[in-house]
C-alpha cells in the first residue's frame, strides 16, 4: 500500500534555518597552503639529489610538484603543477600554481613551504593554525591527535625489521636467529612504543599489498625461544645496533633487548654513528616501500637487505606481474632463514588544518598530492600564508 510522502514529513522533519555557515563538497579554487617540514633543502636544482635525515624525501617531493615526471635515472622533466616563485635555501619556498599544467591547474593558488621546523614547532603551528600541513612521526600520531590536531595516516608502508649481519659469525647460527625472532613481542612494540599507530609485521610485505601477510605469524614464542637458546653450547652476547639519530629505532632495539633477556638470551643494544656501520651482529632497519606493487617492493627490499643479511634469493627473478605464489614463496624463503625478522609496519602520518580538503596521505612512491588539495573557508583564514 502506498503511503503519501507527506506522512513522512511530520515524522522526521528537521528545519534548516538560514545560517551563515560555509559548506563544501566540490573543490574550491584559490588560497595558499602553508606546509611545515622538518628537513632543510638548500637547492631546488632537480639534478641535485639531497638526503635529509628527518623528512627523508622532502627535496624529491618538492621536485615532484615542480616537474611532471621522474625519469628512470632519478632526474625530473616537464612542467609540473606548480612553479617556483621564490626560494630561500634551507628556510622557505613559495610555489605558485601553473595555469597551463597539462594535468589541469591545481586548485590552490600557492604552497608556502617552511623548512627546518622541529617536531614541536610543527605541532604548535598546526595547533595555532599557522600551518595547514606537516608530517608527523608515526609514533607521535596519537599524541598529536590528543592535542586536537587533525591526523591523516597512510596504509602501513614502512617496515621496521631486525636484520642479522651475515658477516658476523655469531649471526650465522640459525638457532640464534630463530630464538631471537621468537622472543620478540611485536604486540607490545606496536602498543607501547608505536602507541598503536602501526601493526605487527610477520612478512616482508603488508597484507594490503600482498594479500598473504596473514600467512606469517607475528606471535612471540618465548618457551621455544628459551629451548633453542639452551641448545647452544656457548651462548654468545648478541649486539643489536640502531641509528644514533633515530629515537624510534633506539626504542625498538631496546625493547627487543628486553624481550631477549626475558627469555635468557644475552643481548646488548647499541647506537651506531652511521647507517653503514656493520660492527654489530644485527641492526634495526627501516625500509619504506617504493611501490604498492608487491613484487616491486619486495625486489627493492631484497636489494636493500642484501648487503647486511646476505640473502640467497634475488628480487630480479620475480616476474612482472608476479604470480602471488611466487612473491609469497620468495618472502617465505627469506623469513624462513630468520636472517630478517619483520617487527612492525608503520604508516606515514600527516597533521592537517581544518580547512584542508581532499588530502590523501601519499602511499609508496607517491608524490605529495597537493595539486588535488583545496582549501575550504579560504576567506576565514586568508591572513595565513602569502597571497
Amino acid at each position, binding site marked *: 500500500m502506498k*503511503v503519501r*510522502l507527506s506522512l513522512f514529513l511530520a515524522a522526521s522533519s528537521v528545519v534548516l534555518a538560514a545560517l551563515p555557515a560555509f559548506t563544501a563538497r*566540490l573543490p574550491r579554487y584559490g588560497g595558499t597552503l602553508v606546509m611545515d617540514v622538518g628537513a632543510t633543502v638548500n637547492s631546488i636544482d632537480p639534478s641535485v639529489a639531497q638526503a635529509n635525515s628527518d623528512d627523508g624525501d622532502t627535496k624529491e617531493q618538492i621536485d615532484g610538484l615542480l616537474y611532471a615526471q621522474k625519469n628512470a635515472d632519478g632526474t625530473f622533466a616537464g612542467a609540473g603543477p606548480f612553479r617556483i616563485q621564490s626560494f630561500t635555501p634551507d628556510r622557505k619556498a613559495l610555489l605558485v600554481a601553473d595555469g597551463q599544467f597539462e594535468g589541469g591547474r591545481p*586548485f590552490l593558488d600557492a604552497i608556502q613551504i617552511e623548512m627546518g621546523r622541529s617536531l614541536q614547532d610543527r605541532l604548535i603551528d598546526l595547533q595555532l593554525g599557522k600551518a595547514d600541513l606537516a608530517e608527523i612521526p608515526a609514533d607521535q600520531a596519537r599524541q598529536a591527535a590528543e592535542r586536537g590536531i587533525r591526523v591523516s595516516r597512510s596504509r602501513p608502508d614502512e617496515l621496521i625489521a631486525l636484520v642479522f649481519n651475515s658477516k658476523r659469525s655469531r649471526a650465522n647460527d640459525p638457532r640464534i636467529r630463530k630464538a631471537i625472532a621468537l622472543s620478540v613481542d611485536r604486540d607490545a612494540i606496536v602498543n607501547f612504543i608505536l602507541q598503536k599507530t602501526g601493526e605487527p609485521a610477520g612478512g616482508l610485505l603488508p597484507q*594490503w599489498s600482498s*594479500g598473504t601477510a596473514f600467512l606469517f605469524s607475528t606471535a612471540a614464542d618465548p618457551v621455544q625461544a628459551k629451548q633453542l637458546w639452551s641448545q647452544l653450547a656457548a651462548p654468545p652476547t648478541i649486539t643489536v645496533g640502531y641509528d644514533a639519530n633515530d629515537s624510534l629505532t633506539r626504542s625498538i632495539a631496546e625493547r627487543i633487548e628486553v624481550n631477549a633477556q626475558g627469555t635468557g638470551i644475552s643481548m646488548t643494544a647499541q647506537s651506531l654513528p652511521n647507517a653503514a656501520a656493520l660492527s654489530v651482529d644485527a641492526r634495526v632497519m627501516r625500509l619504506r616501500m617504493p611501490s604498492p606493487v608487491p613484487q616491486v617492493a619486495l625486489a627493492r627490499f631484497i636489494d636493500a637487505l642484501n648487503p647486511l643479511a646476505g640473502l640467497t634469493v634475488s628480487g630480479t627473478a620475480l616476474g612482472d606481474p608476479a604470480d602471488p605464489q611466487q612473491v609469497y614463496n620468495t618472502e617465505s624463503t627469506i623469513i624462513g632463514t630468520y636472517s630478517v625478522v619483520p617487527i612492525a609496519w608503520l604508516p606515514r602520518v600527516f597533521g592537517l588544518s581544518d580547512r584542508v580538503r581532499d588530502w590523501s596521505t601519499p602511499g609508496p612512491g607517491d608524490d605529495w598530492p597537493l595539486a588535488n588539495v583545496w582549501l575550504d573557508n579560504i576567506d576565514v583564514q586568508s591572513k595565513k600564508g602569502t597571497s
Partner: protein
Amino acid sequence: MAALVQKIAGIASASQPATLKIDNISSLNEMDASTIEQALESELGKRLQLVPQGTAATQITITLSEGETGYVWVAQVGSGTPEQTVMVSIPKQAGNSARAERPAMTLQRKLIWSQVQPFLDFDLPDGVAVNGPGMIVLEGSSVNFYSSVNGQWVAGKSIGLKPAIAPVRGARGMIWDSGEEIDMFVPGESCSGVVATLPELVCAAYPSTNPAGNWPLVAGTEPQDAQFESNRNFFSGLATATGATESAVPAFYTAAAKATSNGTAWLVAGVDGKAQLFNGSKRLIATFSGWGDQVATVDTGCDDSWQVLTTGTGDSMEPDHIQIYDIRKYPQSQTSAQSTSSQSETTPPEAVAVGQPLDFSGPILAMWPSTDLKSARIVSLNLQTGMYEGSIISVSCGE
C-alpha cells in the same frame, strides 16, 4: 576458481576425506563471498571427498584475501605432513550487472555501473536501434558505449574527446538526454547525436559550436541554459535568452528548478557554500546552509510540493549521502504568490528534511536530474572498493 581447485586437488588426496573451511578477509561483500564459497565447495566436492569439520585427516582452509593488484585466494592444505600453501590471483573486474541495493526509506538506489577509472556521467538511452548501445559512459577524455548482452554490459565503440582548452582538474561533464537526441558536455567540447543512430556522434570543440560555453539545465517545462566556466568546475550563472549571464543568480555548482506560474524558481548550490532560493523574478528569498554542492529537483509524484535531492558536505575522502528536502512556503503561483507574499515576509521559505538520508560509502561526484525529473543519475566513488559507480536514484512514496 578452476585454477585454485586444480591446485588444491593436486596436493590433497582424493581418497582421503577432507574438511573445508572458507574465510573472507577481503572487501568482497557477504553476498558475493557466499556465492564464491558455494561455488568453491561445489567444485571441490567433485574432486575431493568433503566431510563435516572435525571428522577428517585433511584440513583445507581457503582464505579469500586481497592485495594491491587484485584478490588473492589462498588455500592451506594440511594432512599430517607440513601444511602446503597454494594461491591464485583474481583480478578485480568492472562491475557488469545491474543490481538493486537495499532501498533506504523513500530513496532507492539502483547501481548500474562501476569501473576503476573515473567518469563524469552516464546514461541509459531509450529507443536505441537493435543491437545499439544501451549505455553511455562519459569520461573526461572519451565517450564509451556499452551494449547489453545476456544481462552483461559489453564494451563497444569509444570516441576520444579533444577539448579546445587546457585540461581541467576536477572537471565535470554532463549527458543531456532529451529522448530522441542526446548531447554531451565536457569543458571545452560537446558532442551531439540521435539516439536511434548511436553510437554515431558529432563532436566539436568550443567555441565553434557553443560560443558562450552553455550547458543545459533541467528546468521543468523547457531547458534553461547556464554558462559553464570551462577552466573551473562551476557555472558562472544562468544564461539569458540572448546568451548573456543572468546577473541576479550568483555562480553555482548545481541548480534545482521548479516551474511556477510567475516564472521558474531556482535553488542554486553556490560557490560560496550556501544554497540560495530565488523566486520566479530571480529575487533571493531564502538561504539554506549545511548542504553539499549538489542539488536536483526530483518529481516524486507523492504530492504537489517541491522536493529536491541534496548531497552532504565534506570532501572526496569521506562518505556522503543524499537527503530529500521539501521546499515549503515558496511562491508557487500568481494567486498563491500574492497570498504567500505577505506571509513570506514573516515566514520565509523553509527546507524540511524528509525521511532518512541514503548513505554512500564515498563522495558523490556528480548528481544530474533526468530530463523528466523522475530520477537522478549519481556518479560516486566507493571508498571501500576504489571503484567509481553510476547509480540511478528514485523516490518512492513508501510501502
